[in-house]
């Protein structure tokens, strides 16, 4: 469990209340041990997740963002995750042009009963973020490097 050693990275989770948040609860009730990096924000539905929340997190210094909702065709609100699927897929494909590693963002579907699956999702994603390391912070330091790079080109 590489993710648990060393200090945590900032991973933001956006979970729908009905499925994935319940799945994370189920994982807790089942005492499925997970890395501690993830901080979960509860939203009613994955359809509530504006892709800009993900971008805002990444711009503000999150090292990874994980979104999870009900499985397609199983949305508490019938259609929310269908909209989410399109928005999040577009977002994932948008990230490279910004110079943001698209692996820092992932979306998936976990139901309230899938505690074991949730553990796997958290573990896999956290390990991935630790392999990528801390995200470059959009600060003065980066600015200076960027300018040096621009001069060199």
């Amino acid at each position, binding site marked *: 469990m590489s993710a648990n050693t060393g200090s945590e990275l900032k991973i933001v989770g956006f979970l729908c209340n009905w499925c994935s948040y319940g799945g994370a609860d189920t994982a807790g009730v089942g005492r499925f041990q997970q890395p501690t990096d993830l901080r979960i924000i509860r939203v009613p539905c994955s359809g509530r997740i504006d892709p800009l929340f993900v971008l*805002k997190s990444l711009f503000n210094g999150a090292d990874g963002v994980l979104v999870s909702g009900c499985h397609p065709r199983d949305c508490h609100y019938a259609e929310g995750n269908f909209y989410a699927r399109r928005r999040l*897929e577009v977002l994932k494909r*948008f990230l490279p042009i*910004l110079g943001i590693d698209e692996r820092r963002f992932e979306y998936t579907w976990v139901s309230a009963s899938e505690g074991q699956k949730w553990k796997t999702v958290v573990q896999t994603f956290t390990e991935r973020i630790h392999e990528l390391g801390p995200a470059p912070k*959009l600060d003065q330091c980066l600015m200076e490097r960027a300018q040096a790079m621009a001069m060199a080109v």
Partner: protein
Amino acid sequence: MSNLDTLKAKIKERLPDLDMVVGWEQGFDPLRATPLFMRTEEDVDRLIWNPLCVHNLATYLPGLKGRKVGVVVKGCDSRSIIELLQEKLINRDDIVVFSMPCEGVVSVRKIQNRIGSLDYVESVEADTGTVKVTVDGSSQSFGFPDVAASKCGRCQYHTALLSDEFVGEPNNEKAEDDYSDVTSFEARPQEERLAFWMTEMQRCIQCYACRNACPLCVCRDHCVAQSRDPHWMTQENSTQNKWFFQVIHAMHLAGRCTECGECERACPVGIPLLLLKRKLNKEIEELFDYKAGTLIDSTPPLQAFKVEEDNINERGW
């Protein structure tokens, strides 16, 4: 009678039923056109149609909603009108669209890059072959493709997709658009891409000309950039904050942007803003086989879904 004269005659014919017709007239110097709001027949006589007519006049339409307005458009501008109609931001009954086949417009920025100062432009002779500009006593000629707007090189819509009065022979040529600008940028190392935007966005002066020129930016007075409610942006003028505004703009336009390029053209410091929107359009076309502003009856893909998506694999572990 030239096409332009025919167009003027048509506009005069329709003008009595309209509050105004928006077109172009010669601006403050021979290189620059400027929007013209025609209310009388005398106004119509000032109308021009040439490669200097760079503005997308559809931008004015949402602000004039509720009034009877005519608008002169190039092929690419007509896509903005279709998108506006599709999103019910303007009423079809209230607008009359005038158009002629377009052979491309110049990029003033490209000319400026070649000449240097454009402060004293004395004369311009522009056609689709060459552009001859005389500045401060000295003349320079350029091949039209070298100083045409980038969007014209990949134009698929020389002829307006929607018009009530069309003058001239429709031109149905279609150039290939392989999004090579996007792919070549993405071929650069990730760190370089990030650095590129940081250095570009540092130059942003937050004038929001990009937003004001965008025909589909409809928040207007309630733009989060100024109202900061919802609190997407802070009051700092940090590069991060300025860049985030462009990301908001791009995401708001996902599946809606018709690539008229007004954001980029209007930017006084020349930040290549269209690249972000082109990237989104490339992905949206791949995912949903959709081009914004081509069909009035279709729905922007992010306001729709399919139970089984054709090109999105279910993600999961």
